[in-house]
């Protein structure tokens, strides 16, 4: 992971961006997650000090929203939906496929650190169910073969 001091300078610069903006917590946490892949504990400490927001409240926010992650994950994040529309179109089978083919469990990371898997509630891709996101890209009408083909692009 990045050097501690280097890490701090990144966090400090991100905080400065939102210093005097009202309602800055959620976008700031998102930027921190984009920079490190997750929200490190010391980032929350620093935000609390600089923006004078009680750290207990920050932790409350950081753990409320499902898309904030608190542990480093794989290089690429797979977010597969299994909600009702996707479920009745076979999403469960794809979950098993990811487990058998890539050794990916819900919330887990492949041993080689390439992929992490998050099971999502609904990502608004019901017309092309089953659907998934990989990092920020959307893919629909998934089959086992199509998933394999897609994941090839993410090294």
């Amino acid at each position, binding site marked *: 992971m990045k050097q501690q001091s280097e890490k701090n300078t990144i966090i400090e610069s991100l905080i400065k961006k939102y210093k005097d903006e009202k309602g800055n917590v959620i976008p700031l946490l998102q930027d921190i997650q984009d920079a490190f892949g997750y929200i490190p*504990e010391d980032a929350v400490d620093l935000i609390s000090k600089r923006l004078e927001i009680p750290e*207990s409240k920050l932790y*409350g926010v950081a753990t*409320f929203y499902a898309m904030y992650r608190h542990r480093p994950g794989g290089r690429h994040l797979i977010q597969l939906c299994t909600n009702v529309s996707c479920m009745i179109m076979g999403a469960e089978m794809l979950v098993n496929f990811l487990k058998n083919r890539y050794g990916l469990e819900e919330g887990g990371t492949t041993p080689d650190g390439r992929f992490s898997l998050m099971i999502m509630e609904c990502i608004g891709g019901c017309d092309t169910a089953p659907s998934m996101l990989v990092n920020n890209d959307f893919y629909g009408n998934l089959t086992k073969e199509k998933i394999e083909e897609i994941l090839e692009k993410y090294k």
Partner: protein
Amino acid sequence: MVKLRIDGIDIEALEGMAILEAARLKGIDIPALCYHPKLSPYGGCRLCIVEIKGMPRPVTACTTTVSEGMEVRTTSPYIERLRKTNLDLLLSDHPYDCMVCQKAGECDLQDLAYQYGIREPRFKGERRIYTKRDGNPFIERDMEKCILCGKCVRICDEVQGVSAIDFAYRGLKTKVCPPFERDLDCEFCGQCVMVCPTGSLVGKNWIGKGRARNVGEVNTTCPYCGVGCSLTLHIKDNKIIRVSSKEDSVVNEGMLCAKGRFGYDFVASPDRLKTPLIKRNGRFEPVSWDEALDYISKRLKEIKEKYGPDAIGGLSSARCTNEENYLFQKFMRAAVGTNNIDHCARH
């Protein structure tokens, strides 16, 4: 003022007052677990639901303010069934510890379970299990017993201004904790313990020292700073086992600080002086009261004769009572005959 009817009783209440408060003014007690007069309304526990003429759904009395001509019913078979089911749900996620729980006999949840006759929760299911204990020296935090009423979070944030704890996570996993579930690190005022309706937050050195039975209460004034908070000492077998404060006390309204609430174990410290001591060739020897008093009075009379009363001085204490201070200066002035008196005030 607003005129309304609660359970057929005409009531006049202040504009903006919650129905729950207006009802309590008239002695109508509506069950509530997350309401506290000092705190902002929350509406989380849903026990204080009442029916209002013209409203489709029951509303919580703690969040709904009175309005002119409102007709409120605080109880009906339907409302009681909803309350009982709500309690059932709370108990289904609560450890069955009443046998050993420190709060037994003073627990709002236990009282309500008794009132609604719930022996077994009807909806069994997974219960929150937290093995990690909080290492702070003052407050035992058993979050399994927490019913998420949020009173501790609100009093720490709104009244104490420290915000040491808040809700974390979501849904059934929601938990009140310090950031990253570190050990509690705050002013340890214990206001959270004061408002906690269950055994989730209790003083660490209260545990096992005794509960409701044969525990006496003595109201007194705090021995520490000059604010003069009212203390209630809980006594068992001639020992202080707990300190609290009545919420209607004028100076502190039941709130205390770490010293007042938790700093009482010096009274029973083994180091307490138990006998008079006289120093003989550099070492203190225990002696009887007569021997000590005779020694002192003999020496005082000798010094007074030899050097006069002004060779004697007296230092009284800002921690002793008015009566003791008065008597002390009377002793120095009338018995000894000097004005050499002071006390260790920080002025």
